[in-house]
């Protein structure tokens, strides 16, 4: 069954997909730098009156928890926050946009976080995206 993106159901399925991804377990094995939030920017035209996001508690190659949240206040204190419009996240999830290349193009913005660490774990980021691509996803326009 496809899960609507973004939603609590999609977030829960994403967590399972990350934990099912052996390549992520390997690439993220040394990650001890804290949670990562993927935030979808507000877009009233799409029915998103405020930003929504997914906070992934990733550690040592595992996703220990995933929380679907509303508003930027909810991601305050998260060590890494990446923000993009929903259309960009769709491109990422569909494998059409590499997340790091997206940052280099300004399509995704690392608004909080230590960029050298993010670059050091570039393969880990890519495997999170591969995991996302494995979630049956419904995009409602």
């Amino acid at each position: 069954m496809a899960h609507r993106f973004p939603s609590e159901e999609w977030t829960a399925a994403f967590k399972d997909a990350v934990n099912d991804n052996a390549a992520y377990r390997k690439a993220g094995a040394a990650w001890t730098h804290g949670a990562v939030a993927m935030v979808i920017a507000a877009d009233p035209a799409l029915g998103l009156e405020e930003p929504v996001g997914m906070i992934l508690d990733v550690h040592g190659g595992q996703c220990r928890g995933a929380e679907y949240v509303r508003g930027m206040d909810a991601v305050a204190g998260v060590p890494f926050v990446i923000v993009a419009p929903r259309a960009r996240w769709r491109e990422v999830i569909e494998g059409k946009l590499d997340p790091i290349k997206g940052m280099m193009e300004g399509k995704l913005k690392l608004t909080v976080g230590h960029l050298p660490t993010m670059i050091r774990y570039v393969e880990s980021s890519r495997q999170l995206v591969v995991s996302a691509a494995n979630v049956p996803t419904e995009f409602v326009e």
Partner: protein
Amino acid sequence: MTQPSVTLAPGSEDNALAGMLATLVRQNLDDSAEKVAVFAKMWGRVAIVATDLDTSLTLRFERGTLRLFDGIVGIPDVTVRATSEAILQLSLVELEPRFGLPDPRGENARRMIRASLHGEVQVFGLFPHLPLVLRLTRLMAVP
């Protein structure tokens, strides 16, 4: 030693790659006194052309100061033409600990060599400005 300064020149704010490199340099300098010492010796202009992003920028180093410009500004001492993937790989090149030079035994260093052989990375002005290129590599490195 003066405080390191990394700034975006007016007009370069919309160049995402310039902003990203500025952040990378700032955070690397915050983390490492060794990089601050390297940065203090850097002088010259480095142009970076991201061939797949249709983006270019210029880094102007003036011993402890870096200003990033959108596009190619002035006459660069060194020009790096590379895909965005290869530009990223430059930061991941392993450095040997003694002199901080690229370590050809490293996986990413070997990947860069292969990319150079395939034309994915071209560095113009490398040999006349080898110290600047080596310092740039050390400054950008994240391992």
